[in-house]
Structures are given as structure tokens and as C-alpha cells.
């Protein structure tokens, strides 16, 4: 398989000009490639968000200072991860894509993303764009109205634009696209609007659709047995709103899928594959090679989209190629990523809907809370529907074998409605009444923490009392973990203790994805600031934190 991958790499590398960003560079990003570049969502196809850079470390971080900041003129919120190539930093939000000099912040070009304001009606939970993809001299970006575009990386000029789906039917896109094995892929969102989830593959050169793999099984597929024998699968949810990871040796791309549609599972009895699952697909065809379902018969709004992080760790004395995933449902999973076999699953926050995940069957053992809920009673559910962790990605330090993640601890009051929801295109399709239980005084909203992926045991946890964190994490070989807070602080924590070693208050809330890279041997850290992008991330902040997007870049103060 390795030979095949490298043959393909050679083929693609040979077919393009030397100045363009290549398939080989994508394979080496976060994997021994130049630290001058950040080319993939997740800082590597594995999405470990780990950097070997050490210039900024536990000792030097006190000299970390902002070197530039630029406005992104956006009040919707910033969740994106910038990419860096050849000294140019590319960043996106729902309104525009910008390219700036990474060392100075000087703007090179800006391309607006125009969409009908009414599109916001079909975006459930905050208007967002989590980033872009780079490949062969092109910047790829999806827009809220479910189009995908290729821009010239040098000028920002639009090269092609392809409609992915019809927003009036509830489809939109908030995730970054990705290029794997020469295919440009995008997910979509709309799980609250009775959509049929899918991942689609495109020719990066022309924008022509190559394949579309639906994430609810239909007639003629074996997995259709997990659906009622009607057309519920057509509105069954399973959207794909977080960018998939990729293992080039196995040639598998791993995508998570969202909640079922409608939220209430009553009109769709069965496990409903591939709702609330991870699917391993061939990027060339969209063929599903294996799947694992986090939450069978999902009715909690426990989307299973969060990042599927790939790592090689020792399990039971043997080094295994695994996939690590902290699900909204409150369990932290480790799977064998070649086969999909479950290796470990442990609660990482308070969980009351399931006692445990049965390692033999791979299925959750549901509790009395779940039985009452499914019977129509009003119950308190932990985690809240927003999950033990939401979209904000964790980081993994391969030297320490730990994951670093933000955790949420809240309780919902949740009931399936007696009246089943009626589907109307482009409107919410839910059938649930859900509110938030009062938090007890003195209880944290959640934590920033370092966990063992196999046991979920924390090395440390920092309680978050004022607000929870909705920021992604970045781990570095300098012994630091970077993250952010809704109140605007960008933080550097000691990876061994969680102690805040450094902080800087940016212009608005930090709920994005920090990156680090080098230019001429100097290490930089960049992060977007701008409260929002998710309505839940703004809870409780009204009047206390102002919105407004910007890019911030930091480096050690020169002598």
C-alpha cells in the first residue's frame, strides 16, 4: 500500500509546477514536512494539531508578544483554522477569504463570499466557516449557501464554482474542504432541517463532481435494514460538518456524521446507519470500507462529527494504528482505524444516558434515563445536547500520548414531543422540547484538560467557572498547549500541569483553531479571534464580550 501511495504521490507531483503546493507536501504536513507550512485542516491529515517546534517553550513563552493583527470585519464569529504556504497566511470566515503575508499581516488579496441573507434561516447553530484547503496553486473554500469554489492562491480570483446542494432545502456548509489522494472533498450541514447527509468528492482542477456518498442508507443497501421501510432515510440527517481525517497508507478518510433527522427517533425506529457514526471511506470513490456507530438509534442530538484524530499508540503492549474521538455523547473512544474495531470507550464527562459502552458488542448500555426518554417522559440528560465536547478540536502530543481538549459539563431537560414533527423543506425538523437545567452554584461549565485516550483519566483538568471554552487546542514540543476563552484570552498552558503560563487578551472571544509555523527560523503562533460562529458559544456572554473578527499572530519578542 505504501508503494501505491508513493506512486500516486510521484504521479501528482510530476504533473504540476514546482511553485504550486503539491500532494507530497500535503502528505508530509505535520508528518516530517517543513514547519514553514501549515497545509491541512488539523495540522496534518491525522488532525493531531501537534507541532515539533520548540522555540516558544515553557521558559521563553513569557516573551511571546503580538507581532500583527488584522481585522476580518465579521460579527458572526471566527472558528476557522488558517493555512500557511510559502510565507502567505490564508484565513476564511463566512464573509471572505483573505491572504496576508504571514510575517507582517500585510494583505495580499481578499475575496468576498456572497450569499443570500436568508441562508441563515437554514444554519442551525451559528454562521461559520472553519477554513479552507490548499492544493496545486488553488485555495478551496465552501460557502454558507452550499457552493464550493476554487480561488487562485496568488490572486484570490475565482477559478470555478460548483453548487453542492440547495440551501432552500436546508443544506449549508460550514466546514473546511480537504484534498486527499487527489480528490477534493466537502461535507455539509443541515441535520436540524431533515436533510440527507453526504460527503461529496470533486475534481480539484475543474470542480466536477466525482462521487456523492450519502450517509443514510437507502433501498438496496444492507444498512437500509436499520431504517423503517419507508422514505425516512431521505430526511434522516447524518450531516458531515467537520472535515474528515485521512490515513494515506490505508487510503481511508474518516468522517463523522451528525444527529438523526428529526431529532426524535420515534418516526425512524432502528439503529439508522450511518447516523451518529464514523465512516471510513476511499477518497477516490466514496466507498464505505467500515463504520462504527457512536450512538445507535440517536435521539439526543449527539452529533458524532467531532474530529477523528489518527495516532499510533501502544494498546495492550502492541503499537496500533488508532482513531481517537471524544463524542458529544460523553464517551472517549479509541478504535483500530484499519478495521473499525472498538478498543476502548470511557466517559470523559458526566454521562447519565448510558452506563458504559460494551466492548464486545461495541454498543452503549443505555440507562433508565434513556428508557424514560424514549418512552416520552421529560428527563434530565447528561451531557446536554451540545455534548461533552462539541466541534472544537482536541490536540494530541505523540511524545506524551495525551489528548488535550475542552470539556463541557451541562445538563439538559429533554423530552420527545407527543406530536411528531411535520417535514417542510428548509424548516426545522425536530420533534423535541429541550431546555437547559440550572447549573448548581460553584459547579464549573467545563474544563480544559489532558486525558489518556485509552482510559479517559485526566493528567490535569482546569475548571472553567465564568464561561466554558469553545476553542480548539494546539500542542507543541515546547511543552505548551495553546487554547482560548470566550472572553478573548489566548492561553498557553503547561502541558504537564495545565498551569496558565502566558495569556493575551485579543479583541473578542477566541473560539477558533490556533496554528504554529516558522518563517526564516522564527516561530509564529496565529489564531482567529471573534466570539461566535456557534450560538452555544455565545451563551451567557450577552453584553459582556463584543463580537468582531480578527487574526492575531504572535512571536517571541526580539532581543
Amino acid at each position, binding site marked *: 500500500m505504501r508503494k501505491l501511495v508513493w506512486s500516486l504521490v510521484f504521479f501528482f507531483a510530476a504533473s504540476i509546477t514546482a511553485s504550486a503546493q503539491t500532494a507530497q507536501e500535503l502528505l508530509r504536513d505535520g508528518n516530517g514536512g517543513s514547519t514553514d507550512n501549515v497545509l491541512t485542516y488539523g495540522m496534518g491529515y491525522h488532525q493531531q494539531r501537534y507541532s515539533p517546534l520548540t522555540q516558544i517553550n515553557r521558559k521563553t513563552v513569557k516573551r511571546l508578544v503580538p507581532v500583527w493583527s488584522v481585522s476580518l470585519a465579521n*460579527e*458572526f464569529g471566527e472558528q476557522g483554522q488558517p493555512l500557511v504556504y510559502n510565507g502567505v497566511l490564508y484565513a476564511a470566515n463566512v464573509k471572505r477569504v483573505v491572504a496576508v503575508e504571514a510575517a507582517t499581516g500585510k494583505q495580499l488579496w481578499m475575496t468576498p463570499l456572497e450569499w443570500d*441573507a*436568508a*441562508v*441563515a*434561516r437554514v444554519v*442551525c*447553530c451559528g*454562521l461559520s466557516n472553519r477554513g479552507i484547503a490548499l492544493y496545486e496553486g488553488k485555495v478551496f473554500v465552501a460557502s454558507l449557501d452550499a457552493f464550493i469554489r476554487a480561488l487562485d492562491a496568488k490572486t484570490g480570483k475565482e477559478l470555478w464554482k460548483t453548487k453542492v446542494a440547495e440551501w432552500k432545502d436546508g443544506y449549508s456548509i460550514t466546514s473546511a474542504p480537504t484534498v486527499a489522494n487527489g480528490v477534493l472533498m466537502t461535507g455539509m450541514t443541515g441535520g*436540524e432541517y431533515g436533510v440527507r447527509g453526504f460527503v461529496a468528492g470533486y475534481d480539484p482542477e475543474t470542480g466536477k463532481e466525482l462521487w456523492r456518498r450519502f450517509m443514510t442508507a437507502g433501498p438496496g443497501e444492507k444498512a437500509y435494514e436499520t431504517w423503517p421501510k419507508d422514505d425516512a432515510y431521505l430526511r434522516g440527517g447524518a450531516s458531515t460538518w467537520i472535515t474528515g481525517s485521512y490515513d494515506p497508507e490505508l487510503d481511508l478518510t474518516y468522517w463523522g456524521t451528525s444527529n438523526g433527522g428529526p431529532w426524535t427517533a420515534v418516526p425512524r425506529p432502528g439503529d439508522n446507519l450511518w447516523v451518529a457514526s464514523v465512516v471510513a471511506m476511499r477518497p477516490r470513490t466514496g466507498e464505505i470500507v467500515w463504520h462504527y456507530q457512536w450512538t445507535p438509534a440517536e435521539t439526543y442530538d449527539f452529533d458524532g462529527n467531532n474530529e477523528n484524530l489518527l495516532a499510533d499508540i501502544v494498546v495492550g503492549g502492541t503499537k496500533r494504528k488508532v482513531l481517537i474521538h471524544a463524542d458529544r455523547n460523553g464517551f472517549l473512544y479509541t478504535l483500530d482505524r484499519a478495521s473499525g474495531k472498538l478498543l476502548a470507550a470511557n466517559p470523559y464527562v458526566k454521562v447519565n444516558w448510558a452506563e458504559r459502552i460494551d466492548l464486545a458488542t461495541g454498543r452503549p448500555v443505555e440507562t433508565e434515563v434513556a428508557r424514560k426518554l424514549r418512552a416520552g417522559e421529560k428527563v434530565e440528560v447528561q451531557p446536554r445536547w451540545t455534548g461533552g465536547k462539541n466541534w472544537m478540536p482536541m490536540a494530541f502530543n505523540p511524545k506524551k500520548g495525551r489528548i488535550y481538549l475542552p470539556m463541557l459539563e451541562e445538563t439538559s431537560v429533554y423530552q420527545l414531543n407527543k406530536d411528531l414533527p411535520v417535514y417542510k423543506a*428548509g*424548516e*426545522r425538523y*425536530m420533534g423535541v*422540547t*429541550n*431546555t*437547559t437545567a440550572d447549573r448548581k452554584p460553584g459547579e464549573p461549565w467545563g474544563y480544559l484538560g489532558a486525558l489518556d485516550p485509552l482510559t479517559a483519566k485526566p493528567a490535569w483538568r482546569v475548571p472553567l467557572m465564568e464561561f466554558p471554552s469553545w476553542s480548539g487546542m494546539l500542542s507543541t514540543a515546547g511543552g505548551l498547549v495553546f487554547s482560548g476563552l470566550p472572553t478573548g484570552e489566548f492561553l498557553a498552558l503547561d502541558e504537564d500541569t495545565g498551569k496558565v503560563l502566558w495569556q493575551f487578551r485579543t479583541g473578542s472571544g477566541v473560539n477558533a483553531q490556533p496554528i504554529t509555523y516558522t518563517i526564516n527560523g522564527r516561530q509564529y503562533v496565529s489564531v482567529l479571534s471573534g466570539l461566535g460562529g456557534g*450560538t*452555544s458559544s*455565545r*451563551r451567557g456572554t*450577552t*453584553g459582556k464580550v463584543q463580537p468582531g473578527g480578527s487574526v492575531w499572530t504572535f512571536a517571541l519578542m526580539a532581543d
Partner: protein
Amino acid sequence: MAGSKAPGLAAGIALAVLTATASAQAPGPFLKEQVKLGADIYERNCAPCHGPRMLDSQVPVDLRKFPPEQKDRFITSVTKGKNQMPPWGGLFKPEEIEAIWAYVMVGEKQ
């Protein structure tokens, strides 16, 4: 709205206005069916941001305190959108937006 005392003061004024209008020019009257229709539309489309039953709002607007004398502003904002709120005029008929107004005015008041 700078200063720690301002929100409380503003709330006090809003309450006074509401009380005054309640006796002098109370909104409505609204039909029960109209309020029910408004509640249904609200729950499906508005609650995700403005909170279930107008509680636990995730945006800086508390609809329970919306001034009754500013119906035109309400109808315009819902129809055409405002700030981060999308325009709903393309989805709802004018009488449905009237129903949302009815629900916001009296639907959650005891």
C-alpha cells in the same frame, strides 16, 4: 450601555413603559388560535437563538421585553432581518409574522 447601573435602569424604564401601555394601549387583542400559531412558528424557527419560550436567549435580545408600541420595528426586523437575524419574509406569510408578534406580546405572560 456603558456603566454597571445602566442595564438595571433601562430595564426599569422598559417595565414602566410596559405597565403604562398595558393599561392605556395594550397590544391586541389577539385570538387564541393566532397566539398558538405564533408559538408553533416560534418554537420551530426562533427558539434556537431566542431560547425556548423566550428564555435562555443566545442572542442579545430579550423578546419578553420587546416594547409593545414598536410593532412596526418587530415586523420589519422579522421580515427583512436585522444584524445576525436572517430575513423570514420569504418563508412566512404576513399573517404568520403577525402571529409571531401575538405570541411574543402575550404568549408567555401569565
